[in-house]
């Protein structure tokens, strides 16, 4: 990928040339990448592996040990006694983790950092994995937010996406969560799957809402080259995502969600009662976070880096007490401005308008792409669908 060739080489000592006092001024988040799946989904290009793809040295247990090494390494690099605002177990399939592994990791975090009193700990879960036993273990470990990979309620769509669960599992698992008092859960939905009708999408949203989540993410499917669906697209086995239909689906989702008391706070995210994903907001607000695990991305005070993708390469570095980063970039002033526009625009809180010319702003307002809320530029519905074009117009 181009980003690696353009980026700086990451030093093996992992040192950061920053003013460490800055770290105390912003929330600090932790991302833990669990690179395991029972089976790879047809659309997935994430850094994840099925058991057969890895040898014995890189199964879950050694991954957890190496992650703890990375936690200790982070403590050494960051120097300060940081308070962790949010933790996010992402993947891969974090719901594959056992009670033992989760507590092992959280203990390591507590030993090296402090957890905020109101720490938000999210775990991504596959509906198939949500059992009473798992829920009990999550609760024991202070996990207070579950993000369920529902994707769709349509059997046909789930099949196209290679997902193994069904609506029965989704309903059963969310009922279990509620029964145990884990009410702060979110559904991840995917729209635009080839063959999905507008009606099927509407049914998916309505089904999700019937289970009373606090939060909903709706992502437009992107068929990436190299995935199974990417290959099917190339050989014309499936059709590409229809962007016009996807636009209709987005508008429909927004309308239904608003009717049910949900409100958008980021282009692809809606919540009720302001139960936003604090973790994801930290990304979009350019706060600091350390991503642990193979291929994970980090951002600390204007420096971004990403870890080696292969679990064994990542682990071997840590065993030598070296940084597992593959490459890093120290953001230039221009890049920081680009990111500020790109990230703030995605949020309902918007982008400070005062740095932009009135001509550009008026043009965007006239074209029904943005509106002014106090002194912030906020995307209109049309603008949310054309956010990349708004970005290009603003970032000149």
């Amino acid at each position, binding site marked *: *990928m*181009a*980003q690696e060739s*353009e*980026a700086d080489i990451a030093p093996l000592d992992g040192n950061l040339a920053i003013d460490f006092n800055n770290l105390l001024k912003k929330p600090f988040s932790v*991302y833990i*990448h669990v690179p395991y799946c029972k089976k790879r989904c047809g659309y997935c290009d*994430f850094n994840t592996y099925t058991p057969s793809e890895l040898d014995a040295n890189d199964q879950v247990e050694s991954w957890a040990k190496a992650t703890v090494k990375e936690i200790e390494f982070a403590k050494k690099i960051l120097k300060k006694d940081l308070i962790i605002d949010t933790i996010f177990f*992402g993947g891969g399939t974090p719901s594959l983790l056992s009670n033992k592994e989760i507590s092992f990791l959280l203990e390591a975090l507590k030993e090296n950092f402090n957890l905020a009193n109101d720490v938000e700990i999210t775990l991504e879960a596959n509906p198939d994995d949500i059992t009473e036993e798992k829920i009990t273990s999550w609760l024991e470990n202070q996990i207070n937010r579950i993000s369920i990979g529902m994707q769709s309620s349509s059997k046909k769509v789930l099949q196209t996406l290679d997902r193994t669960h069904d609506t029965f599992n989704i309903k059963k698992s969310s009922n279990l969560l509620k029964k145990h008092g884990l009410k702060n859960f979110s559904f991840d939905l995917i729209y635009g799957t080839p063959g999905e009708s507008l009606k099927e999408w509407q049914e998916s949203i309505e089904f999700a809402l019937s289970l009373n989540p606090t939060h909903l*993410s709706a*992502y*437009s*499917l*992107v068929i990436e080259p190299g995935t199974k669906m990417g290959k099917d697209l190339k050989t014309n086995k499936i059709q590409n995502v229809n*962007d*016009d239909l*996807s*636009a209709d689906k*987005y508008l429909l989702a927004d309308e239904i969600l608003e009717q049910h008391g949900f409100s958008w706070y980021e*282009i*692809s995210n809606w919540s009720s009662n302001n139960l936003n994903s604090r973790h994801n907001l930290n*990304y979009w607000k350019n706060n600091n*976070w350390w*991503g642990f695990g193979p*291929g*994970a*991305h*980090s*951002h600390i005070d204007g420096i*971004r880096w*990403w870890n080696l993708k292969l679990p064994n390469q990542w682990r071997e570095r840590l065993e030598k007490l070296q940084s597992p980063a593959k490459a890093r*970039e120290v953001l230039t002033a221009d*890049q920081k401005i*680009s*990111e500020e526009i*790109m*990230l703030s625009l995605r949020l309902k809180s918007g982008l400070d308008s005062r740095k932009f010319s009135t001509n550009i702003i008026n043009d965007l307002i006239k*074209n029904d*792409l943005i509106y002014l809320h106090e002194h912030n530029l906020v995307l209109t519905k049309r603008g*949310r*669908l*054309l*956010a*990349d*074009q708004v*970005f*290009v117009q603003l*970032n*000149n």
Partner: protein
Amino acid sequence: MNPDINPAGQTPAELIRNFCIIAHIDHGKSTLADRMLQITGVVEERNMRAQYLDRMDIERERGITIKSQAVRLPWQGIDNKNYILNLIDTPGHVDFTYEVSRSLAACEGAILLVDAAQGIEAQTLANLYLAIESDIKVIPVLNKIDLPAAQPEKYAAEIANIVGCKPNDVLKVSAKTGQGVKELLDLVVVEVPAPVGDANAPARAMIFDSVYDTYRGVVTYVRVVDGKLLPREKIKMMSSGATHELLDIGVISPEPKSTKGLGVGEVGYLITGVKDVRQSRVGDTITDSIKPANKALSGFRDPKPMVFAGLFPIDGSDYPLLRDALDKLQLNDAALVYEPESSVALGFGYRCGFLGLLHLEIVRERLSREFDLNLISTAPSVGYRIVMEDGQEISITNPSEFPNGKVNEIFEPIVKATILTPSEYIGPVMELAQDRRGQMHNMDYLSEDRVELRYTLPLAEIVFDFFDQLKSKTRGYASFDYEPSGEQSAQLVKVDILLHGDPVDAFSSIVHKDKAYSYGVEMTSRLKELIPRQQFEVPIQAAIGSRIIARETIRAIRKDVLAKCYGGDITRKRKLLEKQKEGKKRMKMVGKVEVPQEAFVAALQTSSENGAKEKNK
């Protein structure tokens, strides 16, 4: 054999034989010439390289000869006399018909060289007719008789039928192995008449080629008809009256060698120090400036561009480089003309005139290869003569010059075309020619299964993709040649392409009124595929004047937003957006519509690529 036996300038005319080789590409002309150089001993075995006489890389790669050259070969005839054979190489392509005619005019004989596995091709036939018209002796020869696929009997009969000889009179050679080449040289001595001229008359020499050389300036190749040319003499160009001093005079054998002059019937080179081939034009007569001849040799003609195209640098900052490059090419190419042109879609460039499609391709390729220029060319067009209702006459070479006022009549250039095809494809070929507004004159069976068709066709109809179509309809078997043949009145209209109401100059075209609709439909649908969707709906229309004849609509874009950042990979997303931003910078504005330059390039290439394939013929 000692090359000094007959020193140049002193060779008696009766010992000179001037001849050329008429052949289709790949039928082995260059190989035969190589073999002659070897057998006559002018090139030693160890210095031999394939296609010795073809100078430019492009020529060598494409196996075609763009510029002719003459080489002096000593040869002892069967009568034991020491002869001088001057092999005058002819350009092998349709675009250079005039140069071919001048090369032929410098000869008394021509070898008609035909591939024994393929038979005669249209282009060869056209040049053969030129040779027959100029009354020179034709020696029919079949080449490549060593090939397993050779059918010497069949093609000997075909050639005999065309030339009017007996199949047995067709000599069979293999230029590759050398078989039959000695016999061929002996036959040249016997069959080709010696040149005839008045040694005591004022000097007259015809220029049959003129080449720019970085070190020596223009090298002019001549055939002396009367009198004698001597070094240090003042010579005069009879078309312009310009005089020059002869700095050097000599022969090529096969490297240039100065001589004490050139006499009647001799062929050689002159150097006068001029720096531009247009001062030493093919077909012009050179005479002595002190004792000039009264009358020039007949046949001089100015090269006239027939096909026009705009050449634009893809990177606008290359414009001055393009200008310099064209200036340099023109030093060696009297037929190339150009003037500055600017286009909304393509920026600044040059409108260039060419002899034909191959000439266009060669110039384009030299600009890219020798000058490292990345160019886009508009679809080739032709020149028109337009008579307005008030009687005023306008000549245009660019659709954008088409007048707005009332037009009375439009004249377009036409060509006489020769098509050779296996008889099984006569139907499709006739259909194609008819579709291109062709008028058939005659149809001859060259042999049982090969037919020659003669048509008059509008030039505009063949510059587009005629040859391509012809090849595809005949599985590649047909061959094609044409020569300019004046003009005709035609029902032509200018079709404009409008983007969101604004005309896109690069896509305006002059077409026959019956084809305006299909041109409009094709262009609008092609652009629809190439132009990205905008934030508003964009109509693409084809119009004749104010009348819309075709329309497509690019619907407004509704969704252009990146999906989520996975695990905080902000970098990837920023790079994608920066790429989008860079893309926007390369956009050209046509009115309110942003069009990537690549779209113009692609839209034009689809049409001009067809023309470009012509080069492969």
